[in-house]
Each structure stands twice: as structure tokens, then as C-alpha cells.
């Protein structure tokens, strides 16, 4: 699969490769394009705007004044158009320049129709009435052309045209509403692909960047995308999975390149492309290609509200229509005065200790051949290969000399996280934030190390390159991400140090956090070896409510909203467990069985994980998904030597690199 940013010749190469592999019709399907993107459309429009031929411009969503390449000067041209109307969800650069601004409804508030790339149809159904006076795109367009009608009427009208027979129409309507989707009859296509111009296009490709010819690589940001989510505090505070930066973007440089240029993280530099410049800080990231500067897009927003204000730098200043994503010849000017503080959530990026150089096997990974070789030689009773790496002593030596005193009754909750499946997308972090009323704290507090996320992605670089002297370097790295939340230890070190007993162990294996009992001595957070606990240093809820008055409506009523001075942590979504348990008890009154069946209680992180890396359930049930996961030979616990007996265990990451490519 070739990424969207790549130029046409690379896409053509991709097609050719796929055809050679005979992938079409088997692993890849080509469908007819629903919404063909026409090259040069925006340039044509800008051309017409320049000639003054555009008198009225209606913009349905989007933010062209921000993201259209700068050399087209869309913003200046927009300001000159006599009648410009922007339908927009929020204030942004475009609404600032448009003559008229119409508030747009959110897609969850209005009716509409959506079609997937494979032709599947779905009806967009609203969950609530519009919170403010607003219109959706279809309502607006129809209003421009006639009387104002609401989205429901418009969708029904379209269906009337599609199904003239009333009875059949009603049947299809109800069925589609119920099912959610309607399969399409679109078939895969098998176009004939011609590669005539490919070799010449390939021959014209640019050479690899050199130290005199640096390449600038503009990338869509992992959290704010192209900037459209800049006003979303959750996404601004979400650390980038690789750089761990929040609230800002930076010029990302590899270790060797930065070293050669004499730059350190947070140094201010000035990047220039032709006569366009951008001053911003540098962030050194192991693994960035040599002589390349990666610049995330989507920051440096203006007129977009308090959240986006001051967050990052507008990389679009260096984005030209001729080279929207990759361009060579960018110059770096060092010695710009000062440094710019960048809020990163992880200070130490590797599992190697400084001063001693020793390795801490916190996140275990191996190649398939290593794994197989070990498992073949493993004797019965010996710990599995992941535990061999992660634990310094055999399992037998981790037995306590004291009798077990933890009370265990009922279902025993546990979780297994598969590091092979985890792609480091951060969805779990945001889902947890949404479900559990976790506050954002702002850049200043993230700089102070006080971000509130209950589950975080720990990202470790593993060096794979060596320099001339044979010393290991961080130019070429493997990245392993490990989601880390409260491990719900059976012998939790946090429980016995709380002076008021605000954190106690439930008989089902959860480490309960009673917010109303906590007086905030913070000893529990000190004693947690995983540092999974976060403290409300200020009244973050009050601060959030001041900037987001609607946020109070988002909060989950099943979870306490915390005041300042109170400690919080992952609870395995105990509100969901309790909800499922109440259902089970009520049901059990009739059936006699009041056990929560596997899958009835899903944690928010589990529910949202796109690769199903997180599995949660009853470990005392040998048939549950989580029990099966934990029986795998890749299963290990982090910091098992401390004998915290965590209920969350991990499955080691196994990679299968092609030996010819390695």
C-alpha cells in the first residue's frame, strides 16, 4: 500500500508490484472511485479567484485559508471575494477571512448519508439535537437552492427517488436503520494498467538527500491530523506515539543529523525554503532518516480559540503546491537565539540505564527465530522465553515465604496486552480519557510532568545501528510501544501505605481507588513502581470548565469527577464491571447464574483498540479470552521481580524481519 503523500510515480510502482504479486482480487481490491480527486482543482479555483472571476464562494467545511499550500495565497484571495460564505464547525483562519460564517452542525447531530469506499451505504443518524443553532452541509446547500428543510426530510426525499414504491421504501428504510448498513452491489474492478511513462518518471526522481541537500518531509500529525482537531484539547495533549510531544510540533531530526548540525532538542532554528522561512524548535528523534527534517502539519493555528492558540508552529508556511509533502533544498539556520520549551511526556527513551549502561527488560521483544529457538530448547517447568528476559529469577523463586492473605472471591479480573498487536495509535489513551472524566492540564502542566492520562504508551527505542568504533548508536532503531496503566497488583505496594485507607483491594482483584477518602499524601504514587497513578495538583476540572462550558455535558455520570488533592488511576473501568454485575445479578435472580459472561464488561481501552491488543476478562474462567491469552508462551509481567503480582500481563512482541532486509 502506498501512502497518500507519495508522488504519482511511487503509486505507479506500487501498482506494478502488486500486479507482479498477483494481489488484485486476492489481498487487494480496487473499487470504482466514489469521489474522484481531480488534480489541479484547487489551483484552477485559485486561478479564477486571481482573475477576479469568482464573485461568490461557498465553503462547506474545511479550512482552506490554513491548509491550501501557501504559494497559492488562498487567504489573501479569499479576503477579496465580495461574497464568501464559510460553513464551519468552529472558528478558524477561514472564518476569520470569510464575509459570512454559518455554524455547521456536528455529524452526530444531523441526518445524512454516508458511503464507504467499497460502496456500503449507511444512514447518518443523530444522537442528540443540535446543541446550538446550526445547519448541516446538506441542509445548507438545499437551503441555498430553495426553502429550508431539515436533514431528515432531505434524506427521506433522496430515498423517495431511490425507491419509488412506498411500501418497499419503508421496508428498506427501517431495515437499513436497524442494520446500520446496506451492502452495495459495487463490484471490484480490474483495470488495465499501463506503465509506459514509469521508467522515465522514475529516472527523474530526486536523489537521496545529502548533508548539503536536506529534505523536508511534511507529515500529517498523529493527533491533530491536518489541523482540523487543533481546538481539541484531548488531542493536543495526546503525546505523539514516537516523539511524545504534546501541544507543539517541532522540526524532527535524527541523531546523526542533529549531531552534525550541532543541534539539541529545544534549540530554535530557522528553516528556509527559497524565500519562505519558519522559526521553530528542534526535537531529536532516533530513527528519523538521515539528512531529513520531518515537520508535522496542523499546528500554529490562529483565530481558533484558546486551545489552539500558541500551540506549535505553522509548517504550512513551507508547504508549496508543487511539493506539498516532500521537498529538498531546505536550509537550516542555527544560532537563532534561545530555546523553546517542548512538553514531552517521556524523558528517557530507551531501556538502557545511563551511567551503568545496563539494560532493563521492561518491554520484551524478539525475532521469530530467537523465540522459536528458545521454545524448542525449553524444558518443562522452565519459565517461558519472555519471562526469561523480563525476570531475573525463575518463577519458583518468586514465591513468598508468607501465607497468601489476599481475599479472592467471585470472578477475578485480569488483562492481557499483546505487544505484537499494539501499533501505538493512542486510541486507548483517549478512550480512557473520555470514559473516565480525565482532565487535560495544558502545556505548562505537561512541562511540569503532571499529565493525567490513566493509560499511557511507553515508547522505547532499541538501537540497531553501530558506528565506526562498534559502539551502538541510535541512528537506526526499532520502536516498541507498551501501554501502561495501573496493573491492579495482587500485592499492591500502594495499598498499605495510604494513611487513610483510600486504596484497598477488592475480592475480585481490583485495586479500588476511593476518591472521596483520599486526602492526598501521595505516598501511593511514590510506592507504585509503574508510576501508574496521577494526582490532581490543581482543580483541573474547574479550569477545563472555564474554557469548555460544554464539557460538563460530555462527562460520564457513572464516574466521579475528581476535585484537587485527590489521586486517581485506572480502575479496569469498574463502572462498566459494576454495571455488568448488576445486570448479571438481576438476571441471576431468574436463572440462578449471576456471573458476568466473557465480553459483557469491556474496558474502554479494550473496546476501542483497533487491533484488539488489549483483552480483559475473568482469569479464573479457563475459557475466557484473557485466560487463553495468558496461557501463551509469550506471556510476561512487567517488573515481575518485585513480586507485585500484577493482573495485567503482556505478550512479548515477536517480529519477523526478512533476513535479507535486516
Amino acid at each position, binding site marked *: 500500500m502506498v501512502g497518500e503523500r507519495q508522488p504519482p510515480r511511487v503509486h505507479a510502482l506500487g501498482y506494478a508490484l502488486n500486479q507482479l504479486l498477483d494481489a488484485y482480487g486476492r489481498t487487494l481490491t480496487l473499487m470504482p472511485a466514489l469521489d474522484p480527486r481531480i488534480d489541479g482543482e484547487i489551483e484552477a479555483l485559485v486561478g479564477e479567484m486571481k482573475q477576479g472571476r469568482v464573485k461568490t464562494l461557498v465553503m462547506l467545511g474545511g479550512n482552506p485559508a490554513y491548509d491550501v499550500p501557501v504559494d497559492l495565497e488562498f487567504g489573501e484571495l479569499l479576503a477579496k471575494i465580495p461574497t464568501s460564505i464559510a460553513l464551519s464547525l468552529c472558528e478558524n483562519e477561514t472564518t476569520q477571512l470569510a464575509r459570512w460564517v454559518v455554524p455547521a452542525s456536528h455529524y452526530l447531530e444531523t441526518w445524512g448519508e454516508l458511503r464507504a469506499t467499497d460502496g456500503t451505504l449507511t444512514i447518518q443518524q443523530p444522537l442528540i439535537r443540535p446543541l446550538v443553532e446550526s445547519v448541516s452541509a446538506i441542509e445548507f446547500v438545499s437551503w441555498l437552492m430553495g426553502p429550508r428543510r431539515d436533514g431528515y426530510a432531505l434524506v427521506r426525499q433522496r430515498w423517495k427517488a431511490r425507491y419509488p414504491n412506498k411500501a418497499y421504501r419503508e421496508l428498506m428504510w427501517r431495515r437499513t436503520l436497524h442494520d446500520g448498513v446496506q451492502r452495495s452491489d459495487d463490484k471490484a474492478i480490474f483495470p488495465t494498467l499501463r506503465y509506459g511513462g514509469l521508467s522515465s518518471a522514475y529516472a527523474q526522481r530526486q536523489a537521496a538527500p545529502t548533508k548539503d541537500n536536506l529534505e523536508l518531509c511534511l507529515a500529517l500529525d498523529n493527533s491533530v491530523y491536518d489541523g482540523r482537531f487543533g481546538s481539541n484539547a484531548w488531542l493536543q495533549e495526546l503525546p505523539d506515539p514516537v516523539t511524545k510531544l504534546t501541544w507543539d510540533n517541532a522540526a524532527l531530526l535524527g541523531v546523526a543529523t542533529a549531531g552534525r548540525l550541532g543541534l539539541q532538542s529545544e534549540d530554535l532554528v530557522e528553516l528556509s525554503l527559497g524565500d519562505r522561512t519558519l522559526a521553530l524548535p528542534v526535537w531529536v528523534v532516533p530513527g528519523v532518516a538521515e539528512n531529513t527534517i520531518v515537520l508535522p502539519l496542523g499546528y500554529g493555528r490562529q483565530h481558533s480559540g484558546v486551545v489552539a492558540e500558541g500551540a506549535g508552529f505553522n509548517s504550512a508556511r513551507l508547504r508549496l503546491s508543487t511539493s506539498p509533502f516532500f521537498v529538498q533544498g531546505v536550509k537550516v539556520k542555527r544560532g537563532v537565539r534561545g530555546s523553546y520549551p517542548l512538553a514531552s511526556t517521556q524523558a528517557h527513551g530507551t531501556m538502557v540505564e545511563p551511567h551503568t549502561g545496563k539494560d532493563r527488560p521492561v518491554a520484551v521483544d524478539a525475532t521469530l527465530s530467537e523465540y522459536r529457538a528458545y521454545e524448542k530448547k525449553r524444558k518443562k517447568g522452565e519459565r517461558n522465553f519472555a519471562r526469561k528476559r523480563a525476570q531475573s529469577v525463575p518463577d519458583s523463586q518468586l514465591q513468598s515465604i508468607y501465607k497468601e492473605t489476599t481475599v479472592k472471591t467471585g470472578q477475578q479480573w485480569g488483562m492481557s496486552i499483546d505487544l505484537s498487536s499494539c501499533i501505538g495509535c493512542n486510541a486507548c489513551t483517549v478512550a480512557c480519557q473520555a470514559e473516565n472524566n480525565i482532565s487535560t492540564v495544558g502545556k505548562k502542566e505537561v512541562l511540569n510532568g503532571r499529565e493525567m492520562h490513566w493509560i499511557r504508551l511507553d*515508547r522505547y527505542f532499541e538501537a540497531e545501528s553501530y558506528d565506526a568504533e562498534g559502539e551502538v548508536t541510535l541512528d537506526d532503531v526499532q520502536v516498541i510501544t507498551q501501554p501502561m496503566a495501573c496493573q491492579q497488583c495482587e500485592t499492591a505496594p500502594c495499598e498499605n501505605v495510604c494513611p487513610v*485507607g483510600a486504596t484497598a483491594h477488592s475480592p475480585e482483584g481490583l485495586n479500588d481507588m476511593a476518591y472521596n477518602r483520599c486526602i492526598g*499524601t501521595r505516598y501511593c504514587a*511514590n510506592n507504585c513502581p*509503574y508510576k501508574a497513578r496521577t494526582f490532581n495538583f490543581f482543580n483541573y476540572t474547574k479550569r477545563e470548565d472555564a474554557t469548555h462550558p460544554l464539557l460538563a455535558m460530555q462527562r460520564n455520570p457513572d464516574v466521579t469527577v475528581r476535585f*484537587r*488533592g485527590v489521586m486517581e488511576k485506572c480502575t479496569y473501568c469498574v463502572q462498566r464491571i459494576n454495571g455488568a454485575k448488576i445486570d448479571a445479578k438481576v438476571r441471576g435472580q431468574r436463572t440462578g447464574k449471576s456471573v458476568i459472561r466473557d465480553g459483557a464488561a469491556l474496558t474502554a481501552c479494550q473496546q476501542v483498540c483497533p487491533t484488539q491488543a488489549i483483552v480483559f476478562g475473568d482469569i479464573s474462567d479457563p475459557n475466557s479470552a484473557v485466560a487463553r491469552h495468558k496461557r501463551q508462551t509469550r506471556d510476561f509481567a512487567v517488573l515481575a521481580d518485585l513480586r507485585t503480582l500484577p493482573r495485567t500481563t503482556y505478550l512479548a512482541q515477536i517480529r519477523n524481519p526478512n533476513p535479507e532486509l535486516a
Partner: protein
Amino acid sequence: MATPRVSAVEHEANLSDPLSGRAPLLLGDRSLHGITKAVCRPVECVPSRAWTLFFVVSVAMMGLYVLTTAYLFYEGIGIWGVNNPVNWGWAISNFVFWVGISHAGTLISAVLYLFRQKWRTSINRFAEAMTIFAVVCALSYPTIHVGRVWLLHWVFPIPNQMGTWPNFRSPLLWDVFAVTIYGLVSFIFWYLGMIPDLATLRDRAKTRARKITYGIFALGWRGSTRHWKHYERAYLLLAALATPLVLSVHSIVSFDFAISQLPGWHTTIFPPYFVAGAVFSGFAMVLTLMVIARWAFKFEHIVTIRHLENMAKVILLTGMIIAYAYGMELFIAWYGQNPYESFSCANRAFGPYAWAYWIMIVCNVIAPQIFWFKRARQNVVVLFVVSILINIGMWFERFVITVTSLHRDFLPSSWGDYSPTFFDVAALVGSFGLFFTLFALFIRYLPMVAMSEVKAGLPEAKPHHGAEGGSREASATGEGA
């Protein structure tokens, strides 16, 4: 009437014992009345300008503490530099620092009493006062550093409508009991010991107000045999009660760290190490304050160089214990092969807070070594400078222990750092303000030296004193130490 200062010759008079018997403990005017006059003078005279300045500055610093605390309660713990992972910073370092300082007084009052070290009488009142004030400063920190101060009463095992008790397994709760009892016992001990002196002040009082005030607090002391008998017995009992507290209280405070499992905290040497450190820092603080006080209030003949030298010897001893403890931590980190422990030691010495670690080593291990030399032990300037260095070093020790273990513990992903904010500094400065304010009031209104106990050690106090006709310079029994 000015007290004659000690002459240069006399200054050396009691530094070594003669071949038979002991050198006198006190120099200069050693009569009973002389002692009374010397000690009561600061209380009865108009305070000097120096004292007034000292008092005003201290009150200003204490005011800073009050304001900082008010802002802390209003805004939240976030105004300090604490964060995730370093959830305890200066506030807890200060707490342990002040509790440590408080131990000197109890050791001098109680332990040295049981060991019959008569030289303690010149300094015990002063040191005990310092204990009380240090405990007050110390207790202020756990009070203010909790996130929800208005619910602090939940740490007390009072019956409540929630049907819950506090968690008795938590070291923080043991702290609550230990330090509270310590403060209470120390206060009672100090007050009881002061009763005869308060009676002296009452009897010498010129104004009615003073008569009544000192009279109330003197509890009707007549100096009768019965009163003395009760006094001595109570004193002995309280000394016996306070003695184990010297060892237990700071051991329990050390459990705040030792019971946790962080590398650098989780070591069994912490209780004796902390107790020795407490005595070490306490004596250093006593020395700092006493060197100034004896010069300012002119009783260098009551608190002689010999007394200061004895304190220096205690400092040297406890300093060696501290040095042993440092060495033992390193040894066990190496011998035990616990990777987290070894890293913690390496991080302390070479990591981002290495500067604090080496200040600690220089001030706590190297500086007191000078006290092996008699000349150094008997030189007031050296004593003063080294005691200040030790105070600084001991504060840094608590800082190093608290912060270096927290900022880099088990998971490399959670490593962070800590830097104090203005309010952290204000809280430390403010606590010194509180301490010095109380101290200034003590100097002004209460007798700094335990007159009755000092007099009890003089030859005139011996029952058979006048029998051989007149006072003697030295007697074979019971004088000096």
C-alpha cells in the same frame, strides 16, 4: 550589673582534667547568685536592638510562611514543584530535616541525664526548646502537604459515621502518632524542668504582670523538699520515657522511606542511619545557635568551650556513623546485585542531582573530620562554620534521599525530574522564620539555661559544702564531666 567575661587564661582552665578529680564545669562567677543573675539578665532587661531586629526578621519570614500556606490551600499542591514521578519534594525533605533537628534536645535532656553527664545542664534547656520548636516546624509540613487539608482529621482514629478506621499499616500514620507523642512528651519534659526556674523569675519579677504570669506557669513552686522530691522523680520518669523516643521517633520517620520499595529507600539501615543523622544535625543546630547565644548574652562561663567541645565529639561520633551508613549503602548495592539499587547509587553520584550528593558528602563526611583535632574542637569559629556546613549537608541528605530515588525508579519511561518553585523556597524560609520567631520569644521570656540544674552541679549545692569551711574550687565528687 555586668557579668565578668571569661579571661583568656580562664578560658583554658577547664579544658583538661587535673591528675586528681575533675576540672570545674563552669568558669567565671560560679556562685549561685552569679548564675541566677547571668541567666535572668536577658529575660529581665530591655531587649537589645539586635534581638528586636532578629525578632522582626523572623516574624516577617513566618509571615511569608503563613501567606505561602494560605495560597497553597487556596490553589492546590501544584504551586510547588512536585509532579509525577517526584510526588514528594522539598516539603517532605524539610519535614525530615526538622524532625531530625529536634532529636538533639531530647538526647541531651534525657539520654545524657540517664548517663549522668553533668555537663548537659548548661545546654539542655536551650536544646530542649529547640526540640519543641523544631517539632512544631516539622509537624507543619505533613499538615500542609496533603492535597485535601480540610480532611486531615481522617488520619485520627476517631469514631465516625463512615464506619472506617485509618490504615494502621501505613508509615505515615505511625508518623502521626510518633511525632505527636514526641512533641507532647518533649513539651512536658521541658516545661516540668523549667518550673523551678520560672519560680526564680517569679520571685525576681519587678512588675505585677510578670509576677502573675510567671507565677501561673510556676504552678506555685515553693522550693520545698517535697516539691523537689516530686520534681526529681517526675524528671527521672520523663527522662526514661523520652529516651526510647530518641531512637524510635526518627526510626519511624525513616520508615516513611524504608517501608516503601523504591531503590535507595528500601534499605534496613535507614532507622539507625536516620537516628544518627538526627542527632548529628540536631547537635549541629544546637552548636550554631549556642555559639551565637552564649556570646550575645554573655554566658560563655556557663556554656564553656568544654561544653562545646563535648558537643563536637558527639557530632564527630554521629558523623562517623553517617559516613558508615553511606558506605554501607554503596556496599550493599554492589554486594546485593539488585540492579535497581546499583543504578540508584550510580545515579546519585553521577546523575542530574550529583551536585547535591557531593555537597552532602563534603559537608557530612569530610567537614566533621576536622573535629579529630583538639584545636579545631576548641575553636569557636571552626565550630560555628562546621556546624553550619553540617546543617546544610543534612538538609541536602534529606533532599538527595527523597528526590533521587523518586525521579528515576523502576520504569525508564516514568523518569522525570524535580525543581523547586518559589513557593517551595518560601515554605523552607518560612519554616525557619517560624522556628526563629519561637526561638526569639524563648530567649526573651524564658530562661535559656537550666539554672536549677546547673546550680545543682555546683559545689555550693552539695549537702556537706559549708562543713569544711568555705567554698572549694574543686571537689572530688560529682563536679564536671
